[in-house]
């Protein structure tokens, strides 16, 4: 690791933190509150056309012909686009480019994009879409992942002459099998072995803003795309490839973003289509997907069929864990290569596994493609394992919190699969939820139907594996200093509502001793901002934060130097803070930051600085060993209080205590918002949500009424408890908060239900029907599984 990437956990100035650690307002809060913030669909350009898509009504079919002539003839239609005009395939992972913006020869799920129309308004475009005639030849539709695993033909993604090896893979998207330590021997040594099947269903993001993109193609050959993406840089790369334009001729801008949760990480069909149609028509083009289209575009949580076996000694110490996982990928690869690795690689903390084996297979099916949803790839195994760990505690007659303490891996250690763990506040997380929930006095002692459950987890703070291999920095920052006293931060990082721009602003204010109001942030514009790899893998606070500190310290060095020269004192005596620059040994010497900027500009010319961050070399020494390697890990423990109505089978979560180790909480209010939002989302998918298709491959209910996300009334009391184990490499010791705290919500509910009524819910979602079935099967001793 470059020395520049480590800045220490302490404050930049001797007086202590001034801005960091405060629950400051967000840099864009009032703009959002007053309705002036501009989101993609708020952009209107002169002469703009509107696009609508024709989507496949078939789950799996070959396209025999497409006739667009009637659509083209409709009054008000300006262009119709079909797949053959965008033949180059793309995919967010460079090894698996298997998507076309519009279907070229076949369709792979109901909702797959087939053609697009640009017209004067949406009504005309919709009318024209209905006039496009497509002849299909039906193929066997794979709706069950077991079917896709067993039957290699017909292939959803066919082999081609240049890739004949695909033939032998049938409908397998990715297979990973890794083993660490003496797994079989460790099982033999175990006093107790628990084995079981678990199922995690599909769920989706449902950001309240539907996907939207606007494109303009200028006469000088410059393409500008405004898109509701959480990864501007990858969209720019994908556009360059598919449209065969130089990357330097493409500008991608992320306007204000109305939620993402992983659902806006892939390059999407609408981005290529509006760009191509802008080129084809010479006019600006917009596409706003309907809510129904967003459900079909999906990229959400993969359904996983999981078999787990865990061995432990009588004292609860684990000896071995063995997992076999079948992952239902849907129609395309998306991030699936990474998902398959993550399903195994991210389970190896906060508990020490002496030995571990996993065998994960992702298959293609004819359903909306799955991808990354908050807690990518690791939420499902975490559910299975944390329930199984609870079963182990039950069999060994141990307290569920104690069995988690007994297996704590410690800090400054390595996991069984070779991942480096630095700071680790998991024990403090357990202590916090145990105390806040009054666990010792209440667990196992609540009235009939009421119970407490615990679960823990670990998650990455960014990954050292960039989506495309390169040695360039993962995060870059540029600072511009104005003579007015204003500093502008340019970041390629994507603020998607999580508050990353506010983190930048607070760090600059802290480092330069400024009022946060004198710092502005320009973000996610590929023409203006240095490259950043975007908002995914919980990487932004860690990486953008470190890059911001790096840039500030270079700038600060120039400013302090110039002031010291002007005052003819040693630079060590010059400190910045509270909007001024002063001499620590002579109180009469005090100037404003603005005056200091002027002195520095006189001495060093126009002021500005860049900063960057890159990860150290990390990961296990084996194929795939870098996937899941992170410069720091966050840790979480939940206690959930639930009650079960034994008449109706309905589970209600009353309280959820979430203790999350995020390292330094740069802004505790924003951290709490991430913790609460994560726990809410986990509880929602455990109890209410189900993203599934029917026996024809048709979505079961693609609306926000049928796909039930919780309202304010459905959401339990969420108690966010912040644990700060300062990480040696994080910015001031900070780690992540946006994804980790989702994981334990789901198993903690299942474990609370066991405490309440003695049934083990191992298959999600936990519906009243599944609860009633388990209650009916409950043996007289009060234990059962479903």
């Amino acid at each position, binding site marked *: 690791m470059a020395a520049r990437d480590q800045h220490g956990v302490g404050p930049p100035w001797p007086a202590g933190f001034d801005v960091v650690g405060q629950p400051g307002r967000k840099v864009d809060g009032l703009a*959002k509150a007053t*309705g*002036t913030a501009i989101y993609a669909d708020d952009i209107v350009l002169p002469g703009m056309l509107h696009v609508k898509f024709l989507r496949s009504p078939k789950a799996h079919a070959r396209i025999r012909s497409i006739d667009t002539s009637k659509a083209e003839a409709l009054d008000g239609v300006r262009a119709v686009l079909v797949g053959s005009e965008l033949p180059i395939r793309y995919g967010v992972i460079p090894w698996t480019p298997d998507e076309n913006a519009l279907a070229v020869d076949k369709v792979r799920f109901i909702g797959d994009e087939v053609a697009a129309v640009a017209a004067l308004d949406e009504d005309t475009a919709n009318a024209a879409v209905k006039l496009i005639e497509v002849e299909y030849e039906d193929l066997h539709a794979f709706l069950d992942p077991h079917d896709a695993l067993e039957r290699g033909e017909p292939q959803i993604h066919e082999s081609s002459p240049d890739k004949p090896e695909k033939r032998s893979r049938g409908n397998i998207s990715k297979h990973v099998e890794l083993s660490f330590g003496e797994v079989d021997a460790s099982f033999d040594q175990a006093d107790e072995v628990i084995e079981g099947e678990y199922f995690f269903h599909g769920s989706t993001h449902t950001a309240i803003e539907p996907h939207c993109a606007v494109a303009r193609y200028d006469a000088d050959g410059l393409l500008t795309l405004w898109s509701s993406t959480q990864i501007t840089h990858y969209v720019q790369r994908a556009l360059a490839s598919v449209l065969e334009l130089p990357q330097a001729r493409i500008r991608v801008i992320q306007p204000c973003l*109305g939620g993402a949760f992983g659902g806006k990480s892939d390059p999407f069909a609408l981005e290529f289509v509006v760009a191509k149609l802008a080129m084809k028509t010479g006019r600006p083009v917009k596409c706003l997907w309907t809510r129904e289209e967003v459900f079909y575009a999906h990229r959400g949580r993969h359904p996983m069929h999981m078999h787990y076996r865990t061995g432990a000694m009588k004292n609860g110490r684990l000896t071995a864990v063995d997992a076999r996982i079948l992952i239902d990928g849907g129609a395309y690869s998306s991030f699936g290569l990474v998902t398959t690795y993550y399903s195994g690689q991210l389970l190896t903390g906060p508990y020490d596994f002496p030995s571990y084996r996993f065998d994960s297979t992702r298959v293609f099916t004819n359903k909306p493609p799955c991808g990354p949803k908050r807690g990518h790839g690791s939420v499902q195994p975490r559910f299975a394992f944390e329930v199984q760990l609870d079963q182990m505690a039950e069999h060994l007659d141990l307290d569920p919190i104690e069995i988690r303490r007994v297996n704590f891996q410690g800090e400054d250690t390595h996991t069984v699969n070779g991942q480096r763990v630095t700071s680790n506040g998991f024990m403090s997380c357990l202590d916090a939820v145990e105390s806040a929930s009054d666990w010792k006095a209440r667990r196992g002692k609540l009235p009939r139907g009421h119970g407490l459950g615990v679960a823990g987890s670990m998650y990455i703070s960014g990954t050292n594996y960039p989506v495309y291999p390169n040695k360039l920095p993962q995060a870059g920052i540029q600072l511009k200093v104005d003579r007015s006293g204003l500093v502008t931060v340019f970041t390629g990082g994507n603020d*998607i509502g999580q508050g990353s721009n506010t983190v930048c602003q607070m760090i600059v204010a802290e480092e330069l001793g400024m009022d*946060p109001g004198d710092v502005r942030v320009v973000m996610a514009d590929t023409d203006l901002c240095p490259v950043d790899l975007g908002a995914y893998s919980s990487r932004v606070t860690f990486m953008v934060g470190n890059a911001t500190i790096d840039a500030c310290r270079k700038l600060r060095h120039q400013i302090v130097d110039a002031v010291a020269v002007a005052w003819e004192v040693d630079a060590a005596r010059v400190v910045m803070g509270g909007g001024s620059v002063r001499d620590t040994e002579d109180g009469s010497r005090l100037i404003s930051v603005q005056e200091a900027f002027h002195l520095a500009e006189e001495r060093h010319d126009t002021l500005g600085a860049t900063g960057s961050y890159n990860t150290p070399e990390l990961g296990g020494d084996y194929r795939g060993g870098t996937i899941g390697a992170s410069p720091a890990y966050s840790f979480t423990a939940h206690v959930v209080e639930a009650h079960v109505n034994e008449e109706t089978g309905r589970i209600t979560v009353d309280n959820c205590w979430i203790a999350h180790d995020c390292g330094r909480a740069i802004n505790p209010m924003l951290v709490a918002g991430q913790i609460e*939002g994560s726990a809410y989302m986990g509880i929602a998918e455990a109890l209410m949500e189900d993203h599934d298709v029917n026996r024809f491959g048709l979505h079961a209910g693609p609306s926000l009424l049928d796909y039930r996300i919780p309202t304010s*009334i459905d959401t339990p009391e*969420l108690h966010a408890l912040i644990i700060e184990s300062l990480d040696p490499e994080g910015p001031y010791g900070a780690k992540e908060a946006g994804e980790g705290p989702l994981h334990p919500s789901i198993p903690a509910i299942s474990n609370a239900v066991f405490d309440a009524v003695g049934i083990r819910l191992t298959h999600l979602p936990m519906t009243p029907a599944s609860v009633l079935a388990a209650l009916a099967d409950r043996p007289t001793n009060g234990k059962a599984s479903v």
Partner: protein
Amino acid sequence: MQTMRVLHLRVNGDRRDIAAPDHWTLLEVLRYSLGLTGSKQGCDKGDCGACTVLVDGQPVLSCITLAALSEGREITTIEGLMPAHVAAGGQGADPVQEAFDRCGALQCGFCQPGMMLSARALLNENPSPSPCEIKDALAGNLCRCTGYTQIVQAVELVVAEAAGTEPASPAWAPGENPWKKAPAKKGGDA
């Protein structure tokens, strides 16, 4: 050809005469004819509440309300709250908007114009709602970011400050209550 109709609306206190297609919703007129893009379209079928505006003071889903039905009505969008507050002698944004910002209730912010208007309508009718009444009044507005916790806290903060009482301290701040005193706005007095 589309049939057009001339509508006479009062939007945020302004008299606006607009020709719009007969089938347009109030949301379409607000966003497309008047450029008031603060009202958001999240589902276009009345499920999410992001398009909520006030019609004669009552929260209404503008995406499933025909614009023609708003003829002669008083419409308040998110853009109207601050000017109304200033016109009434207040400073800056409406206390609801201020409290949402202070409490961190605005993450992506997309659902919040509708959410804040629902909160404003509640407080106009009941200046001291209980937490249950707050949750009930906001149940038609879906938020996917916050888990509603900081939203409910923001409305409670408005209630507490109007009553001159101390708002409850959140779980994440075991020390000093962060909302005891209004923090200075960013940029000092500007």
